């Protein structure tokens, strides 16, 4: 199965999104995001900030402020392995972050 996204993030870490996750998870719950793949890629490459999930330390959460998309953040969650490879598990627009998420990267 091929990857729909395979990029280096702003820190030089490889991040991928498999077809299974994109079509089977992300679009299964949000079919209207079918045209958002470039926004998701851009969020990984040029986020406004990156957080670490409070309950899952291996999850890095990318946020990009998208003023052109009705003024909200695009949030992308990637699960990292010990080789610093990230695998996207979810992506959606949000109007804030979560209180317990810690910022681990800012430009």
């Amino acid at each position, binding site marked *: 199965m091929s990857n729909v996204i395979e990029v280096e993030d702003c820190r030089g870490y490889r991040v991928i999104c498999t077809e*299974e*996750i994109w079509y*089977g*998870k992300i679009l*299964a*719950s*949000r*079919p*209207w995001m079918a045209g958002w793949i470039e926004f998701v890629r851009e969020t990984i490459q040029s986020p406004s*900030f990156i*957080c670490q999930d*409070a*309950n899952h330390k291996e999850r890095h959460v990318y*946020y990009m402020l998208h003023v052109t998309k*009705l*003024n*909200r*953040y695009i*949030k992308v*969650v990637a699960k990292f392995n010990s080789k610093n490879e990230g695998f996207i*598990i*979810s992506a*959606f*627009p*949000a*109007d*804030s*972050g*979560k*209180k*317990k*998420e*810690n*910022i681990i990267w800012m430009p």
Partner: protein
Amino acid sequence: MDAIKRLVATESLKTTFLSRLAGKRAPLFLHYDDDADTLILLLESPNVETTVHYLNDDVALLYTPDKLEIVGLQIEDFQSEFVPMYNSLQKVWRLSDSGVKSGNVWDLTLATQGRQLNVALEVVRAAQPVIGPPAKQLERALEYA
């Protein structure tokens, strides 16, 4: 995270859509993703664009970005954190008979309507202290789903 600006105030979100659902047969979409451990509950078609509005680290409202109408809920850390906190929800949440597993997605949209409704109602009741007044309207709308 408080340093990150909240873009839409909770008070700005509307419940007109939910109010209009009372007495009508509302569409119910329930989707659980076991990789992300996230449950989505929608009283609108999943084809309608929504934005996530966090109320705490587990519970979020889903609203339409153009009209700011609340149309559903998103519960994160659903099985690991949320379900164990509520006995009545634990009773109705049995993955093995709640849905049909397709790949690694539990597609509750394929499950029986009655099972979906029980899960949806218990989720809304459990989240009521966090959601506040819109929870009553969600519950009322679910009565006709």
